[in-house]
């Protein structure tokens, strides 16, 4: 029987199912019988889910405007096309 510490070290592999079936079954047995590890596993999965669901906020208008202005300037400096010629390091 795995200890909680052993389970925890394999938590990511368990969540991502990147182990062979026998190892996964052993981890699954532990988490089924250990309420603490069940909660840790469950709340870790929820943590990942909430981050994955996080919407990407638009770039603030002022920052975006300065970005587009910098790109516009670069286009003009390079005669409208940055790709037909040399690559320039700054």
């Amino acid at each position, binding site marked *: 029987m795995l200890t909680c510490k052993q389970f925890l070290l394999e938590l990511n592999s368990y969540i991502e199912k990147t182990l062979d079936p026998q190892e996964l079954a052993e981890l699954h047995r532990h988490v089924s019988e250990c309420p603490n590890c069940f909660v840790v596993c469950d709340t870790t999965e929820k*943590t990942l889910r909430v981050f994955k669901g*996080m*919407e990407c906020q638009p770039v603030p208008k002022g920052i975006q405007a300065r970005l587009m202005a910098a790109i516009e300037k670069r286009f003009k400096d390079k005669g409208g096309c940055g790709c037909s010629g040399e690559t320039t390091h700054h």
Partner: protein
Amino acid sequence: MSTTPVSPAFDEAALVARAKAGDQDAFNELILHYDRRVFRMAKQITENDDDAEDVLQETFLKAYTHLNDFQGNSKFYTWLVRIAVNEALMKLRKRRSDKTVPLDEPIDTGEDEVVREIAVWDQNPEDVYSREELATILDQAVQSLKAAYRTVFVLRDIEELSIEETAEMLGLSISAVKSRLLRARLQLREKLTRQFKKKGEDAFAYL
């Protein structure tokens, strides 16, 4: 120069091809599609709006200048992220060189993973908090991580790069990425559980 209208569906490869041919509108469209993701990542790594803005600008300026070097072997965004990560890490190293461990230095990977808060969550946080409140909570949680953990978490779990890509971009071994990712996830779980746990469920320690 191509005058093909942009289809309503975002066609990355076509836009890149047009941008390479000198079509400024196509490059601008790529910017407007990806700027928020680059900016978010830059902000999460540098923890600073001004640095994030610099990273954002440098990333797209370099992408523009070196567009011919992009061979299409990876997704355009992966190529862009690589530029952005390098820029963000440079900012971070410059600013923090005197007070934190370098990102490529081995860190303690002992077995004392942090698990103190063991409590079920009350409800889905998405149902309890507004989008803005939730975004603030998550941002603060990520920013409370040490840079060594934060960078791995941002690349792997927010940008959804593979373990191998994360390792390569950060100059770390696969095993270092894995152990840092475990730490990062457990620390975030800990912080979020404090915030989201069911009322009346007190923390208790185990392990």
